[in-house]
C-alpha cells in the first residue's frame, strides 16, 4: 500500500469512527431516508389494484423519485461540515501540519461520506422494492418491478451522492462558517435532484440513451470535481482565512532589530 493510499485510509477510518461515536449524526441522518421510505411504501400499499394504469404510473414515479433524494440530501450536510467544521473545532490545523496532502484529505473525507450514503440509498430502494413485492397487489408489484427508474436508480445513486459530496466539500474548503457551508451545499445539490425529478415525473422522457448520457456526464463531472476540490484545498486559506498571496521578489528592508550582530549567529 502506498503512503498516499494509507493516509486516505487513515482519514476514512477516522471519519467513520467519528460518525459511529456521534449517535446524533447517525440518528438525524436516518430520519430523512426513513420518511422517504415510509411515504412511497404506504402509497404503493394503499393504491387499489383496480386503479387506472396512468394513476398507478404516477404513483410509481413519485414512489421511485423520493428515495433518489436520499443520496442527494444525506451526504450534503455531512460534506459541507467536514472541512469547515474541523476548522471551527480546531482539529484541522494539527492535521495540516502532517505530511497529508490536500487531495488525500478530501478524497478520504469524500469516501467516508460516500460509502454510508450510497449504502443507505441502496438499502432504502431495496427495502421499498422488497415490501412492494411482498405486500402490494400484483399489478402494483409488477409496475414497480418493471419501472425503468429502478435500474436507473442503481446507476444514479452513487453519481448523485458523489455530486453532493464534491459540492459540499468544495464549499466547505472555501467558507469560514459551517451554517453558510450547509446552506450553500443544499442549494448546490439541487440541480441534479431537479433533473432526476424531471425524468422521474416524465417531464423529460427518460429514454435509455438520455439516461446513459446523463450518467456519463455526471460521472465526468464527479471525476473533474475531485480534481477541482483537491486544487481548492489551500492550507493557507484554511488556516488564516486569506488565500496565499504572491511572493515578492524584492528584499524587505531591515528595521528596528537589535543587536544586529546577534542575528544569524548561533549560541
Amino acid at each position, binding site marked *: 500500500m502506498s503512503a498516499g493510499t494509507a493516509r486516505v485510509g487513515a482519514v476514512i477510518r477516522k471519519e467513520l469512527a467519528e460518525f459511529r461515536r456521534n449517535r446524533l449524526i447517525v440518528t438525524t441522518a436516518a430520519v430523512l431516508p426513513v420518511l422517504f421510505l415510509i411515504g412511497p411504501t404506504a402509497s404503493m400499499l394503499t393504491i387499489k389494484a383496480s386503479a387506472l394504469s396512468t394513476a398507478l404510473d404516477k404513483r410509481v414515479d413519485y414512489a421511485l423519485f423520493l428515495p433518489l433524494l436520499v443520496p442527494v440530501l444525506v451526504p450534503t450536510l455531512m460534506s459541507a461540515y467536514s472541512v469547515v467544521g474541523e476548522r471551527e473545532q*480546531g*482539529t484541522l490545523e*494539527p492535521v495540516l*501540519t502532517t505530511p497529508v496532502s490536500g487531495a488525500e484529505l478530501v478524497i478520504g473525507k469524500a469516501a467516508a461520506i460516500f460509502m454510508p450514503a450510497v449504502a443507505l440509498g441502496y438499502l432504502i430502494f431495496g427495502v421499498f422494492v422488497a415490501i412492494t413485492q411482498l405486500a402490494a397487489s400484483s399489478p402494483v408489484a409488477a409496475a414497480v418491478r418493471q419501472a425503468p427508474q429502478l435500474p436507473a436508480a442503481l446507476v444514479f445513486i452513487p453519481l448523485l451522492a458523489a455530486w453532493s459530496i464534491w459540492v459540499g466539500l468544495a464549499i466547505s474548503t472555501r467558507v469560514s462558517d459551517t451554517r453558510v457551508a450547509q446552506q450553500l451545499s443544499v442549494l448546490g445539490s439541487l440541480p441534479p435532484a431537479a433533473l432526476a425529478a424531471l425524468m422521474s415525473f416524465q417531464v423529460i422522457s427518460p429514454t435509455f440513451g438520455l439516461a446513459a448520457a446523463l450518467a456519463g456526464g455526471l460521472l465526468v463531472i464527479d471525476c473533474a470535481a475531485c480534481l477541482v476540490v483537491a486544487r481548492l484545498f489551500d492550507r493557507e486559506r484554511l488556516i488564516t482565512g486569506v488565500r496565499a*498571496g504572491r511572493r515578492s521578489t524584492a528584499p*524587505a528592508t531591515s528595521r528596528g*532589530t537589535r543587536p544586529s550582530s546577534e542575528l544569524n549567529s*548561533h549560541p
Partner: protein
Amino acid sequence: MSGDSTLHAGRDETGTARTGRVVRRPPPGPAAPAAIEVSHLTKVFGGRTAVSDVSFSVAGGEVFGFLGPNGAGKTTTVRILGTLISPTSGSATVAGIPVGPASAAEIRQRISVMPESPGLYQRLTVTENLEYFARLYGLPRRQARISEALAAVGLSDRAHDLAGSLSKGLRQRTALARSLLNEPAVMFLDEPTSGLDPVAAHEVLGLIDALRDRGVTVFLTTHRLDEAERLCDRVAIMSTSLRTIGRPDDLRQELFSTSLDVTVAVALPEPGRVFGGLPAVQGWKAVGPPDGGPAGYVLTVSDAAQAAPAVTRALVAAGADVLSIAQSRHTLEDVYLELVGDAGERSR
C-alpha cells in the same frame, strides 16, 4: 535564572511530573548545525504586515524562545516555518530543508507543530487520536510509538479515555504526545501553557524541558516570560519585526547597567558625601520615601564585587544602620517591557 542551572524534568513512579533545579546543560555550541535558518522573512496579509524582515537561526538541540505581545507575528512565523502558510518574501530552512511548496511534505515529515489549541477529536480516545496521526505520518511500529509517546507524557493509564473527557492540562499533554510520535527533529510549540492552571502549566513545562535530553530542537512561542526564562537557551523578542535576540543573561546586561540596591534604616542626611568618590560607583539616586522609615538608594556601579564592600564601609563609617545591600536583578520581563512595552501599550 542563573547561567549555570537548569531544570531537569522526568516522571516518578506514579507518572507525576517532577522537576528540580539541577545542572544547566550548556547550550549547543557554534559547531552545532542550524536546525532553523530564517532570512529576511516577511508576511503581509492584505495591507497588514504580520512579520517584517525577520532573520535569525536556531541551532540543533537548542530550546529557543520566541516572545512577543499578542499580534506580534509569533504564530505567523511558526506557521511559515511549519509550511502552513507561505512567506510574502524572504527565505527559511527547517531541519536543513528549504521552506517552499516543493519541500513542504518533506519538512512536515521531520517536524511537529503543536498549535495553541490541542485540537483533539473529542469523540475519539487518546489512543485513537494518536493512531490517526501515526497513520498520517506513515509511521512503522505504530502501537509501540504510541505507547512510547504516551509514556513520555505520563498518559499511559489514560490511553483509552475519550479525549473529550480529559482536563485541559491532560489534553495539552495528549497534544504533546501527538507531537512526539514522528520523533521530530524540530518541534514548534505555540503557547503550550496557554489557559492552563499553574500546576498543569508546570507539568507541561517539565515535559518540554525533558525534550532537551532527546536532542530535539524546540521552538517555543510564548508571552509568559517566566517560562521562557526558565526553559530557553536563547530568546528572540518580536513585535512584528525582531527587536532583539540572545541569551536572557546577555540581554539583561546589554539593556541594563549593573547596580546595587541599598536599604538603610533611616535616610542618609547627605548621601552624596557617603557615595561620592567610592571606587566603582558611577552614580546614585534615592528611591525610598524620606518619611523617617527605611530608605532606599540605587547605585550605578561598574563592578558590583568591588563597589559593594566599599559602599558597606562608607555606610558604616557614616553611622548608617544598613538593612541590605544587594545587586539589582533584572528579569527577562524587564528586558521585554523595555523593548516592547511601549509598543504593546499602543497596540492595546
